């Protein structure tokens, strides 16, 4: 079966539009992906025909909504090869990491303990640990980068010790696309007794993820970067750890029995889901995963690799362009700088030509500081982008050069 990008694209109605008088070339998929009709229909259908509060069970619609909502949780569990009690709904990756920082790091860290992260982490996988360290007297340790912006594995092994209580690492770098050898790193961290977390925000849309195979304690991702709605994300947590953790927030839904004197907590996963959840978001994310799983994922991955290969080849031939992040193993992200062109200028001049990219520090200020640059221009590709669009990016960049 050959992969038909035109047929896939046709399922994303937003892509078929003009921006500033030019056909839209959407290359900001690392920030958020577009949504297929299957997801739009699921959201519309939920609000048109099903909307009701979940877990109340008093009437037909509530049963229907609960069925779809919990069905979506099972879809996520299957997607990650986990069990449904281990899947917590969150607002997104940021909240997922905050739950672990709050309910594990702040509970367990002692002065002298260490949390180990890497230089290329998103702020969402830095600040919660930094603040937990400040609150507990623990120390934040940071794995440096090699020249190609991959993680320095020798330094990682030197930084790792019995003091490392938590190891939190991005599966793929949002700013540069570098794919980290997380399975190997998680195994080494576990061998030292660390609790491990993978920030999968930039991974799940690109390739299948199996949390049992990774043997990781926590895995976090966002729905909106996986063709689903905004405001919904997932924290996978190993059952024994989730059982031992105190609740994140308290209130309705997460309780078993409440008196004015005390409360007892609901079972997993509800213990971590205070208040009415994002029901439509969860159902929409379930629809996104169902849709994605029905595609030939190996063909999608091959297509994304072809996009990145074409973009990299063109970038290397482009006079005055410097690729930032040249690791051998990358997801389909091309981060770069143009000689004499501030990323903000390049981004604005690309936008005028209908090409949407992200510019700036990409929420990775410490990474940009370590590279000594103010930011980059980032083209991040997804399954519905075409080779023609890669060419359009470089034609537009030729024009940008004439302004600088």
């Amino acid at each position, binding site marked *: 079966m050959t992969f038909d990008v035109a047929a896939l694209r046709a399922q994303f109605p937003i892509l078929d539009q003009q921006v*500033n008088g030019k056909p839209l070339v959407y290359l900001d998929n690392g920030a958020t992906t577009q949504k297929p009709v299957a997801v739009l229909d699921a959201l519309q259908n939920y609000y048109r025909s099903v909307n009701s509060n979940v877990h109340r069970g008093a009437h037909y619609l509530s049963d229907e909504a609960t069925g779809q909502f919990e069905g979506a949780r099972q879809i996520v569990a299957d997607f990650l090869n986990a069990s449904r009690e281990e899947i917590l709904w969150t607002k997104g990756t940021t909240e997922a990491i905050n739950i672990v920082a709050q309910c594990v790091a702040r509970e367990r860290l002692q002065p002298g303990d260490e949390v180990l992260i890497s230089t290329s982490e998103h702020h969402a996988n830095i600040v919660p640990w930094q603040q937990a360290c400040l609150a507990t007297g623990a120390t934040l340790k940071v794995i440096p980068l090699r020249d190609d912006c991959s993680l320095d594995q020798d330094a990682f092994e030197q930084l790792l010790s019995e003091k490392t209580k938590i190891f939190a690492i991005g599966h793929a770098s949002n700013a540069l696309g570098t794919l980290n050898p997380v399975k190997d790193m998680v195994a080494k961290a576990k061998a030292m007794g660390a609790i491990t977390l993978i920030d999968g925000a930039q991974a799940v849309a690109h390739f299948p993820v199996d949390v049992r195979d990774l043997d990781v304690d926590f895995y976090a991702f966002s729905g909106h970067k996986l063709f689903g709605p905004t405001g919904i994300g997932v924290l996978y947590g190993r059952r024994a750890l989730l059982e031992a953790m105190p609740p994140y927030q308290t209130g309705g839904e997460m309780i078993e029995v409440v008196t004015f004197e005390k409360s007892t907590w609901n079972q997993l996963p509800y213990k971590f889901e205070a208040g009415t959840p994002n029901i439509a978001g969860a159902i929409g994310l379930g629809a996104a995963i169902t849709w994605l799983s029905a595609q030939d994922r190996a063909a999608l991955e091959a297509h994304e690799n072809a996009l990145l290969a074409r973009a990299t080849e063109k970038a290397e031939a482009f006079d005055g362009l410097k690729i930032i992040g040249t690791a051998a193993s990358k997801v389909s992200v091309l981060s770069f700088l143009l000689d004499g*062109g*501030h*990323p*903000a*200028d390049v*981004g*604005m*001049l690309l936008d*005028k030509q209908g090409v949407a990219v992200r*510019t*700036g520090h990409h929420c990775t200020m410490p990474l940009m500081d370590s590279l000594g640059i*103010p*930011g980059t221009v980032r083209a991040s590709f997804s399954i519905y982008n075409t080779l023609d669009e890669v060419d359009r990016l470089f034609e537009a960049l030729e*024009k940008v050069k004439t*302004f*600088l």
Partner: protein
Amino acid sequence: MSFDIRNITLGEKITAEDIAEDLEFLDDWEERYRYIIDLGKQLPGLPDELKTEDRFVRGCQSQVWLETDYDADADTLYLAVDSDALIVKGLAAIVLSALNRQSPQAIHDYDMDSFFERIDLLSHLSPTRGNGLRAMVAKIKHQAEHLAA
């Protein structure tokens, strides 16, 4: 040549009216943006020693620095700006064409949104852009308000 904020003639030799008239004649985006970038290139930037934290206006995408100098006798506020991004510096030059070498009262009263709307660049002043330009205008206005009070 050493930097002297009072040598920046934008706002006097080239006024907001001049810029609006120039932009009216440029109808495609390329000509307009080349013009804006050119304005930025002509604007003397700040020497590095003046790019300090207290002159810094934080933007998400690009940085802006603002220097001011008030001549109380003439009731005139002198402005100088710089940015690490060309388009933002050009847009900052347009702001200066309207506000530089004016009295604090005149600066306080000036409707920058209307001016940017007239020259069809209002989106650059929008809070969503995060380019520091809006924050820079607010900082100038705040100082002018303080001086006019």
